[in-house]
């Protein structure tokens, strides 16, 4: 589901709340803007290639299993452009960029096995903003003065080229309550 799907769905719901009588125009707007009543069913994108399921991950035909989707399970604490939409994958950076050495960490639950994983959100650095698949989810995000949990920081800071391009989401461990 794209950012615009979300935006249109939210808008339609907001509109429905705001409109006391279901006038001609509000009904039309609801139709045009997406309609909160329409099911937001996930189906494979038209032009996308079928993807092989990754070990232990949800079906890639669902948003929770699709690395190009903001709803991908690993993206729970992200705020940036998905490297998987920018010429990279969810674990490797787009051509010509370099992965940041320092980063922030999130903890995301994998719906396929119900376990919590520690996700390292490394930034891809050295080219300007990718501009595709902006995704902001912020689960567990903390302010900048708490750097290891903050996604508002340009984590390219440690590298030669610190321009931010996009972000990967790499599994670095399983979280267990301590």
């Amino acid at each position, binding site marked *: 589901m*794209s950012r*615009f*799907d979300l935006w*249109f769905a939210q808008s339609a719901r907001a509109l429905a709340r705001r409109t006391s009588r279901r006038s001609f125009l509000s009904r039309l707007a609801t139709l*045009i803007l997406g309609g909160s009543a*329409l*099911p*937001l*069913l*996930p*189906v494979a*994108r038209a032009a996308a290639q079928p993807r092989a399921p990754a*070990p*232990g991950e949800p079906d890639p035909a669902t948003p929770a299993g699709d690395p190009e989707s903001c709803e991908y399970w690993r993206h729970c604490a992200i705020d940036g452009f998905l490297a998987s*939409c*920018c*010429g990279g*994958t969810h*674990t*490797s*950076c*787009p*051509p*010509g*960029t*370099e*992965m940041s*050495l*320092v980063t922030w*960490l999130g903890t995301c639950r*994998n719906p*396929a*096995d119900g*376990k919590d*994983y*520690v996700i*390292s959100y*490394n930034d891809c650095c*050295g*080219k*300007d*903003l*990718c*501009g*595709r*698949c*902006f995704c902001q989810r912020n689960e567990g995000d903390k302010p900048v003065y708490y750097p*290891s949990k903050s996604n508002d920081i340009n984590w390219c800071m440690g590298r*030669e080229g610190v*321009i931010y*391009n996009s972000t990967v989401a*790499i*599994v*670095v*461990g*399983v*979280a*267990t*309550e*301590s």
Partner: protein
Amino acid sequence: MPRATPAAGRVREAGRRAIAEGAVGMRRVLLRAAAGLGLAVAVAGADVPLETLGSTERLREPPHPHWVFVGDLLLRRSALLDLDRSTFLGMVSSGFLSQGIAVPRRRAEFYVPETYYSRGSRGERTDVVTIYDAAALEPVDEVAIPPRRAINVLPSANAALSDDDRFLAVFNMTPATSLSVVDVEARSFAGEIATPGCSLVYAGGERRFLMLCADGSLLTVTLDEAGQEAGKLRSEPFFDPNEDPVTEKAVRYGDRWLFVSFEGQVHAVDVSGDAPRVEAPWSLLDEADREDAWRIGGIQHLAVHAASGRLYSLMHRGGADTHKQSGSELWVYDLGTRERTQRIALHHPGFSFMGDTIEFGKSWPWPFNRLSDWLLDSVAPNPGLDVVAVTQDAEPLLVTGSKQSGSLAVYDARSGRFLRRISSGNFMVHAVQAPWSAP
């Protein structure tokens, strides 16, 4: 004056070694950070295998003919797209009003003329030709050139690579005009050639370039083995720049350059012989077209599929001085017969908002999943198309783009059938290049 800086590529290689060495230590740092967050981290017992850090993609080799560069003057970049899979392969960041990427046939490289200021929009100016590794999409070297590169909003014709892939000529305007010649094999600046009264640059032979002069004539500049001026030849004027000038957006068709005038006259220049030969002009428009006020127009309004001899031209209805107006139709010509063979009604390129294509409901059940397409094609105002390009293979694709959108519409170039829209992540589309032919 340009300053020498360490070649970016060498710096990058050092960086790559550092990350390879750093990757082992990095996991240690990460796990320590996780521990600091009160998380105990297990490395076993997970269904998802742990992954490695620090990897970067490379493009597959050789490049595919359906890969296109999509330029955005505003974001100062070109996106590289795969038109078959509708994917974004990567991007090339560039400097202030950088136009056109020169792609050689014989090396897995490309060359980008760029202009930078020490304080972004002010300060000391530096002009360079940056040499990229085509598979890594990363600068490997740069050649400083005089800080006089012409800066305009053309999609092409500000730099040209000689047909033997050896010399890149960069057009300068201060407003005095000249060419800076770069030996891209030796990666060095070869020199500057004064070209008074003549502008822009088109490749026209092994070591030869064409330029257009203000009086409607051609200047031919020939280089020697060292990239120095071996000869200059000025033609008779072949069009009247006051009455009916040709646009700068000429297209190459084998040994010919096709220059098309505001009024739709096609002036072909054959560069196969010792001197360029201008052929008799012919018109894209017949009487009925002229009566209906059809005209050429757009930012990059022409494309040629060389193997099939098809010319594609963006057309709109409008009065005089509308040579930059967006096209509403794409007209197709057979360059053998000089006949129009098709008129393609252009689909909406799709709106985009800050790089994201505005579409919704692609995942809804039929027929609701067609809603956004239907609204675009039947209700939304079509901004018109400013850019057209065609791929150079046996199953060619046509691409059209708008300066008001970052989305592209893709068509089958043989049938004219609309296939799909794809997102470039750009804010606008200023130029589309399909630089790689089938091997």
